[in-house]
């Protein structure tokens, strides 16, 4: 393959954001077309260099070809839409029925999330997998909030007047935070390599549930009782909206629309959840929560710009 053709096809691939096997097929097909065109042109006495240049030029701009190919291949079926929505709906049911002080109810649900994620991971990593994986990260996040008092006491001792003696607990807490960050980072990087928009969708429930976890922690802990059960309802409602968003995401073809849907829904959901949890949060409170929710969109986008999408298909000789 000519270096110019390789560069062009690699540029197309880097903008495809499809599954690796689909991308490989498409690139093979485009390469076949370009090679035939070059052969035709050279058989008409066109110099090789000029033939390559003409073949690439007549194929069109790489980004635009990739965008059209993505739009042609990305639309999922209604069954896919259901698979994307199901984890959000399941989580919404959990929040609506509020069994957080009943560990025997929560455990099977969490095991289900883990099993579905594992099954997806071992069977070709379909796109719907990432929505399920997002929820398997929640216990890690919950652990971080549970351990907040330990770090809180240490910070108080450091900057205030109190004394601190639980050094073992502090070291265990820091270890847990590092481990959680590593797991979150690894999973997120994997999702971003596949498609940063999918990674955003995967991470979308985290800021909403983080607000709830923080509020729960402030209200006295997770397994304490029913006083704050009514506060689960706005989270449940936000997760139902997220389920519809995931279904719309699957059925849309244009990436800009997919991104727009995620950002809009996430910002509005966060403001509604914040308002319900903390009362009148005001303009700056709403703005802060919106910006916080945008992190799950901006971080994958920026990371993608730095590390790129997928693995290069075409190795240099």
């Amino acid at each position, binding site marked *: 393959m000519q270096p110019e053709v390789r560069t062009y096809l690699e540029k197309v691939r880097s903008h495809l954001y499809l599954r690796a096997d689909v991308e490989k097929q498409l690139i*093979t*097909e*485009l390469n*076949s*077309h370009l090679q035939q*065109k070059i052969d035709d042109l050279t058989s008409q006495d066109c110099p090789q260099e000029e033939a390559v240049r003409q073949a690439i030029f007549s*194929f069109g701009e790489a980004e635009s070809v990739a965008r059209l*190919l993505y739009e*042609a291949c990305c639309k999922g079926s209604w069954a896919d839409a259901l698979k994307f929505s199901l984890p959000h709906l399941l989580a919404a049911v959990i929040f609506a029925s509020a069994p957080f002080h009943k560990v025997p109810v929560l455990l099977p649900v969490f095991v289900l999330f883990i099993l579905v994620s594992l099954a997806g991971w071992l069977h070709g990593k379909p796109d719907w997998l990432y929505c399920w994986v997002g929820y398997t990260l929640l216990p890690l996040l919950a652990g971080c909030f549970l351990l907040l008092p330990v770090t809180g006491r240490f910070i108080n001792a450091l900057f205030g007047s109190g004394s601190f003696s639980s050094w073992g607990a502090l070291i265990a807490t820091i270890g847990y935070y590092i481990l959680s960050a590593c797991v979150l980072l690894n999973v997120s990087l994997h999702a971003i390599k596949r498609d940063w928009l999918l990674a955003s969708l995967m991470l979308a429930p985290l800021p909403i549930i983080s607000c709830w976890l923080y509020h729960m922690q402030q209200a006295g802990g997770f397994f304490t009782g029913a006083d704050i059960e009514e506060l689960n309802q706005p989270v449940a409602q936000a997760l139902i909206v997220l389920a519809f968003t995931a279904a719309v995401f699957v059925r849309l073809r244009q990436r800009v629309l997919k991104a727009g849907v995620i950002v809009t829904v996430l910002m509005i959901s966060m403001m509604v959840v914040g308002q319900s949890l903390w009362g009148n949060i005001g303009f700056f409170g709403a703005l802060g929560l919106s910006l916080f929710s945008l992190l799950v969109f901006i971080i994958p986008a920026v990371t993608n710009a730095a590390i790129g999408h997928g693995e290069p298909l075409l190795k240099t000789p």
Partner: protein
Amino acid sequence: MRSNSSSLLHGNTDMLILGMIEELGSAHGYQLMKEMETRSKGFFRLKEGTMYPLLRKMENEGLLEGKWEATSLGPERRCYLITAKGKEFLNFRKASWRDFTNAIDLVCKANTI
């Protein structure tokens, strides 16, 4: 493609591609591109990169079936065959197109009288 043929072709490319594949039995993207240009005497000249999104879209919609074909020289080629659903769709589009052109003819004739 000539300047004003772009808008005329818009929305009808799928019909042209399906029609050619039905006639040829099976065809790959490059072949379809050349056939379209030759048959239309250069009137329809698509930007080549737009052919494959169309083929993939029609394949995903079940109008075409793609198969890989080994070649003696160069990389594998993907050939497309029309499905029963594709034939049905093509007949529907041809009938709509005939109705449309008949209506245009009737209006234009009426204007010239």
